[in-house]
């Protein structure tokens, strides 16, 4: 049901794009207005979100330590999983952001003949997660061919590495297929594994399907319904130089592709895709485990919260303390003893 909702949404988007592309002025809307709008929403939304996060302080130093702390010279610190310096934190973050270190740790509870319950290593999610993100990155970078004139220097080598075989006149880029395969894996995983299906929301299926649709329309455009690449480039460069114009017949499939990308961009800041920004700001990962070495400041630390004072404590228990030989700050009055100080109601102190 939740899958269906997401599926209907993506199909509807494709249909809308096809329809609008046929209406007079529709192509300008899809090719010029919406890209600007979507990019503005993306940029504005992304910055807004990150600024909003940054506005909340990090009151406590709470790294999750995944290795040995730095303590005694003869005990080896795990510098990447339990960093104490900024450099080490950068190292940990690089591993996390570039290589998905935590997912690499993934284990799966399983049963082996023997028999025994074991927690074996499970790297599929890590592998396909990594493939997905890197092929996405390569594709985005390859598209820079369309937005730069002359074409940026890194594009050609990238294309050379990425394109592994040629069919006719067209180079096939492996990243496109890896992306689709990885998205498919990530989707099937959610549908097939019972506990993942249980916890997945439409908001989890939707981006996967949307990205699949973007990839699929891109491939179709490249290999099946060829579009006029010269007009496309005129448009895209025009967009970048703020002089966009649509010349000639580009083909509807292009507008579907662009529309879906616009939806993705506009959807981005309001969704879980913001993990792109969040991964850098997660306090359990980006902080050094040096809280006993350097004091961490909490801007809203309330100085009015005081401990139950020693004086109040001693006042309550003084007789008992003296009797049992515990030192006291104030000697008890020699006058007739108070009745049962220990049974008296505890003395309260107020926050204020």
């Amino acid at each position, binding site marked *: 049901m939740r899958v269906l909702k997401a599926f209907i949404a993506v199909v509807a988007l494709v249909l809308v794009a096809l329809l609008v592309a046929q209406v007079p002025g529709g192509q300008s809307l899809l090719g010029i207005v919406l890209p600007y709008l979507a990019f503005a929403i993306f940029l504005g939304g992304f910055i807004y979100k990150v600024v909003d996060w940054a506005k909340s302080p990090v009151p406590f130093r709470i790294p999750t330590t995944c290795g040995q702390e730095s303590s005694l010279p003869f005990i080896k610190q795990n510098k990447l999983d339990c960093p104490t310096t900024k450099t080490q934190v950068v190292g940990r973050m690089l591993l996390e952001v570039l290589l998905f270190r935590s997912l690499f740790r993934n284990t799966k509870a*399983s*049963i082996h003949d023997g*028999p025994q*319950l074991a927690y074996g290593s499970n790297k599929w999610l890590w592998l396909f997660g990594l493939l997905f993100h890197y092929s996405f990155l390569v594709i985005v970078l390859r598209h820079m061919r369309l937005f730069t004139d002359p074409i940026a220097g890194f594009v050609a080598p990238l294309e050379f590495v990425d394109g592994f075989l040629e069919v006719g006149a067209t180079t096939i880029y492996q990243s496109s297929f890896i992306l689709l395969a990885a998205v498919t894996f990530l989707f099937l995983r959610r549908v097939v594994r*019972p*506990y993942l299906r249980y916890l997945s929301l439409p908001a989890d299926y939707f981006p996967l399907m949307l990205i699949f649709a973007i990839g699929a329309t891109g491939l179709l455009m490249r290999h099946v319904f060829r579009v006029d690449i010269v007009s496309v480039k005129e448009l895209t460069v025009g967009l970048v130089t703020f002089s966009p114009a649509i010349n000639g017949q580009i083909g509807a499939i292009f507008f579907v592709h662009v529309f879906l990308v616009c939806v993705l961009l506009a959807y981005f800041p309001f969704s879980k895709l913001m993990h792109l920004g969040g991964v850098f700001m997660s306090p359990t990962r980006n902080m050094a485990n040096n809280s006993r070495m350097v004091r961490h400041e909490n801007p809203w630390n309330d100085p009015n919260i005081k401990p139950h004072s020693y004086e109040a404590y001693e006042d309550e228990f003084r007789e008992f303390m003296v009797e049992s030989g515990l030192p006291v700050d104030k000697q008890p009055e020699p006058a007739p003893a108070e009745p049962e100080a220990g049974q008296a109601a505890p003395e309260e102190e107020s926050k204020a």
Partner: protein
Amino acid sequence: MQLAQFLAENKGEIQDHWISRVLDSYAEDAAAIFKREQDRFANPVGYSTRQTLTTVYSLLFDRPDQPEPDLQQLRAEMETFIKIRAVQTFTPASAVAFIYDLKAVVREAAAKQRDLAATTADWEHFHDTLDQLALIVFDLYVACRERLFQTKINEIKSMNYMHTQHGCSAAGQVDKTTQLMADVQPLHTHSNEAR
């Protein structure tokens, strides 16, 4: 075909049915929250179910000329399984019920076996064996629950060790529950005895 031979020859199939029926018990729940799924998510519970039922069946019906089962061994094999069930909000009756599942599974399988020539005596023996098994399970279940409650008592005692066990003069400061526990349970002088 004799019943014993039938039980030995159809071991795999009967075991599988039995296991899935016991696991199904989670799904036949009145609330019908769950239904079964093929790819079982591996876990202590599923593991223990499969392992225990397979072993128990083998001990009982592995060969046509199977000797009388060793009850002590059966008990040992089932202990962990029952231990898990004993802390899983099963009713006491349902902890035993899985044994009766086997009766049903065997009866269904036997109905399909045309050349089966099982005598009344054979069937009686079969049912008696399983009834005996059910009694063992019941014993085990109760023993587990007793151990659980004993653990609770031990915990209260050891948490307040100095008061309940050491004859400490401050025993008067301990709250009422602790005192009650200490009164009910004869005091042990050392923790090892308490265990």
